[in-house]
């Protein structure tokens, strides 16, 4: 999977490493900005109130 991505990136090893880094950062950004905020209320880790439900 990651091997496949690596083989399909253009340029020499340095350029590929740089592109990979950018891709990783982009993924982390999307996770922190969109995915985790969406997932968090669905997970039972941080409910702090008492309620009847």
């Amino acid at each position, binding site marked *: *999977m990651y091997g496949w991505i690596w083989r399909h990136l253009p340029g020499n090893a340095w350029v590929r490493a740089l592109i990979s880094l950018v891709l990783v950062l982009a993924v982390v950004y999307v996770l*922190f900005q969109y995915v985790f905020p969406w997932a968090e209320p669905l997970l*039972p880790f*941080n*409910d*702090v109130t008492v309620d*009847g439900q």
Partner: protein
Amino acid sequence: MARARSRIAGVISVFGELLITAGVLMGLFVVYSLWWTNVLADREADKQGSEVRDHWASAAPGALDTRDGIGFLHVPAMKNGEVLVKKGTDPKTLNNGVAGYYTDPVKSALPSDKQGNFSLAAHRDGHGAKFHNIHKLKTGDSIVFETKDTWYVYKVYKTLPETSKYNVDVLQPVPKESGRTKPGRYITLTTCTPVYTSTYRYVVWGELERTEKVDSARTPPAELR
């Protein structure tokens, strides 16, 4: 034969990479929950807190403003500075690194009310983690609530380290479970427990000891000095 074997190897290696990815993903989620949400929430709470203070400085004494936040909670035993208190306990409010007073299922009293229970909730971890150190509170510790004109000094008289999340009776105007039977001016702090999960709720009860007028220098009461 050799081709079949290499295909199996390929499938296994993709499966392995997926597992590693899942592990990294969960690790990142922990980083997000325990660090990044604190960064965001503290930033937001600071902003909202200074707005309230600016408001106080500029406005003449008057009606309680519940929109921006009604005041600041100071709990020396929790060592977390001041916590802005706003109306409501929905996640959107609490995620900004503030404490909220209950409007539902049991409506909270306000500190200025003649009697009743001022009931609050805040996060134990992440989103500012304002009640992270709630377990450090012991009987006799002080909880000070600061409004525009008054310091309300409460003393903790009972803690309940573990209760069900359905136990809404802890918020009653007279919290019977704390041992009190007469109407009074109580404060109730609730958050989740054990740390990092929310299986149960942690509850701390206090009772108003005295109030102090805020002077022009906003000199804090003895408990905070």
